[in-house]
C-alpha cells in the first residue's frame, strides 16, 4: 500500500518533470539547441498565473488566469527567440547553453523582484480535495496533473504529426538547410517552437503550483527535468515523458528506502547509466556522426 501511494505521488511528480522535459525536447528537435532556462520559464509561468489568479493580486478566475498566462508565456518564449537566440544563430551550441543559463538567472531575478522570494501558494478550485479508496489517498491535483499531461502529450504528438506547422518543424529539425530550400520558413518555425515550449512550461508550472508553494528557485527543477529528457533521448517526445516518469517514481522510493542523499543523486545516477550504456537515450534518434 505504502509503495503504491509513493508511486502515485511519484507519477504525478514525474508528469511535471516530463512536461518540462517536453519543452527541452521541443526546442532541441527544432533547432538542436538546449534551453537551460526551461525550468525558469516554468517558474515564470507559474508566477504569471499566480499574479493573474490570486485574489491578493489581480484576482481573475483560475480558469481565465491560466489561459492568459499560457498566452503571455508563449509571447515570452517567442520574444526570447526573436530578440536573443536568433542573434547567435550559427554560433556553437555551447554559446546557447551559457546564454540560456544566464537568461534563467535573469528570469529568476525578475520573478524575485516582482513576487518576492517567500514561497507563495497558487489558489486553485480543487485545493486540498482528496479521493480515498482502499487505504490510498489520491489528491485531485495529482489526478489532474496526470490527466493534463496525457492530454498535452497527445496534443503535441498530433501537432507534429498532422498540422502543417508541425510537419514543417519536423522537416526543419531533420535538416535545416534542406527545409529552407523547399520553402519552410525555418526562422519563423523556430520562434513558434520557442513560444510553444514557453506555453508547455507554463502548464507544467501551474500543475507544479497546484501541488505546493512556489518560489523563484523552483526553476532548479529544470536540471532534473533535463536528466529526464536525456534519459528519454533528447529528440523524442514520448521518451521525455517516460524519462520524467522514471525519475519521478524512483525518487520518492529511493527517498523512502535509502539515505536522503541517495534520493537526490538517483536521477543523475540513472542518467549516467543511460548515457554510458545507450548514449542516445532510451528512444535514440541520433545517427552516427558524419564529417
Amino acid at each position, binding site marked *: 500500500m505504502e509503495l503504491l501511494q509513493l508511486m502515485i505521488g511519484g507519477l504525478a511528480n514525474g508528469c511535471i518533470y516530463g512536461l518540462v522535459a517536453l519543452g527541452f525536447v521541443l526546442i532541441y528537435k527544432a533547432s*538542436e539547441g*538546449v534551453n537551460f532556462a526551461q525550468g525558469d520559464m516554468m517558474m515564470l509561468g507559474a508566477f504569471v498565473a499566480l499574479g493573474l489568479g490570486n485574489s491578493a493580486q489581480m484576482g481573475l478566475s483560475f480558469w481565465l488566469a491560466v489561459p492568459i498566462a499560457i498566452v503571455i508565456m508563449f509571447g515570452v518564449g517567442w520574444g526570447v527567440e526573436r530578440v*536573443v537566440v536568433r*542573434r*547567435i544563430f*550559427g*554560433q*556553437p*551550441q*555551447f*554559446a546557447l*547553453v*551559457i*546564454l540560456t*543559463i*544566464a*537568461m534563467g*538567472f*535573469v528570469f*529568476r*531575478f525578475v520573478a*524575485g*523582484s516582482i513576487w518576492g*522570494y517567500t514561497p507563495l501558494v497558487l489558489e486553485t478550485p480543487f485545493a486540498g480535495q482528496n479521493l480515498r479508496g482502499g487505504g490510498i489517498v489520491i489528491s485531485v491535483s495529482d489526478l489532474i496533473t496526470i490527466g493534463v499531461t496525457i492530454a498535452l502529450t497527445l496534443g503535441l504528438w498530433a501537432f507534429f504529426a498532422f498540422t502543417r506547422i508541425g510537419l514543417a518543424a519536423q522537416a526543419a529539425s*531533420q*535538416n*535545416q*538547410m534542406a527545409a529552407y530550400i523547399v520553402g519552410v520558413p525555418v526562422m519563423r518555425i523556430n520562434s513558434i517552437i520557442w513560444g510553444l515550449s514557453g506555453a508547455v512550461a507554463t502548464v507544467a508550472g501551474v500543475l507544479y503550483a497546484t501541488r505546493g508553494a512556489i518560489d523563484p528557485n523552483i526553476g532548479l527543477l529544470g*536540471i532534473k527535468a*533535463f*536528466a529526464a529528457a*536525456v534519459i528519454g533521448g*533528447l*529528440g523524442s517526445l514520448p521518451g521525455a515523458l517516460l524519462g520524467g516518469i522514471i525519475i519521478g517514481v524512483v525518487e520518492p522510493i529511493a527517498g523512502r528506502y535509502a*539515505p536522503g*542523499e*541517495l534520493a*537526490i*543523486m538517483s536521477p*543523475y*545516477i540513472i*542518467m*549516467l547509466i543511460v*548515457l*554510458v550504456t545507450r*548514449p542516445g537515450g532510451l528512444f535514440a*534518434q*541520433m*545517427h552516427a*556522426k*558524419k*564529417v
Partner: protein
Amino acid sequence: MRIVFKTSYDRDIDLHEHGWSRAKIAVLLGIMILLPFLVGEYYLAEATNTLIWALAGMGLMIAVGHTGQVSLGHAAFLSIGAYTDAALMNAGLPFLVAFPAAGLVAGLFGAVIAIPAVRMSGIYLAIATLAVFVIVEELVILLEPITGGVGGTMAPSITFFGISFDRYGALQNFYWLILGVVALVTWGYANLMRSPTGRSFLAVRDSEVSARALGINVTRTKALAFGLSSGVTGLAGALMGHYIGFFNYELFSIFISINLLLVVTIGGLGFIQGAFLGAILITGMPQLIAIMRDGLNASTGIDLGSIPGLDTMMFSVILILFIIFEPTGLYGRWLKIRTYFEIFPLARRDMFRRQKSYLKTERMK
C-alpha cells in the same frame, strides 16, 4: 607593424614571437612579484583570489577552450581538490605532498569519468558533468569522516621549511606561493600547447574525424585533456580551500561552475590570457558593483543593496551581451583592437571571422 624573420624551426615554435613580448611578460611577472609592496592588505587578498580563479579558469580552458569539451561541473573538481588537500593535511602530511596529491586525485577522477564521457559530445558531455557535480556534492555530505559533512572542514595553515604561508598571518608569503604556482602552471600550459599533445587537443576540437584520420587517438586525447583540466582545477580548489580557511560543500555550488564558465567565455575561449582576463572581471565586478552601489546610495539615496540577487543579474546580463556581441571574449576584442592599430589602415572587419565553430551537431546535417 613588426615583421618577424624566422630563421629556424625553434624560432618558429618559440613561445614568444619576438623579444619585446618576452620582455612584456617579464615586466608583468616582476610587477606581480612586487605587488605586496605596492598595495594594501585588502587588495593583496583580492589579487590572491583573482590568481586562484585564473588557475581554475586555466583548468577549465584546457577542456572548453582547447579541446572543445564543455563542462558544467568543474566545481566538483574544485571541491575534490580542496577536500583532498585539507584531509591529507589534517592527517599530518605536509603541504608539499598534499597539494600535488590534490591535483593528482582530481585529475585521475576527471580522467576516469572522462573515459565513458568521451563517447558523448557537446551537450551530452555538458549534462554528464553536471550529473557528476551533483553526485560529488552529495558524496561530500555522505563521506562525513573525511569531509566533515554538512559542518565542513578546515584547511590548516601552510608551513614548510620553517616559513609560514598562513593566509592571515603571512598573506605576502601566501600570495607569493600562489603566484609561483600560477606562473608555473601557466608556463607549463603555454608549453603544452606547442607540443604534439597540445596540438592534438586543438585538432580534436576542430574536427574529430580529421584528427582521427591524422592518426590521433581521439579517446585518449580527450580523456587526457579532461584529466589535465580537472587536475589543474583540483590544484585551484586546494588553494581556494586554503584561501577561504573553513569551508563546507556549499562553497562549491553550481554557481561556481557557472562562474568558471563565465571566466573562460568572457575572457576569450581558446586563449590562456582569456582565463586571466575573465578571472579579473569576475573577482573585480562584485567590488566595482559594491563601490558603485555605495556611491549611488550616497548621492541619490537609491539603495540598490535592498534588491537581492542584483549582482547575479548583472553578471548574467554581461554574459548575454558578450555572447551576442563579442563571442571571442575580452581577449578576442583586445586582439582586434591591437591588430587594427598595428596594421592601420589595412584592418578589415572580416579578418577575425570565425572559420570553425567549436562544437558541431550530433546529428547529420
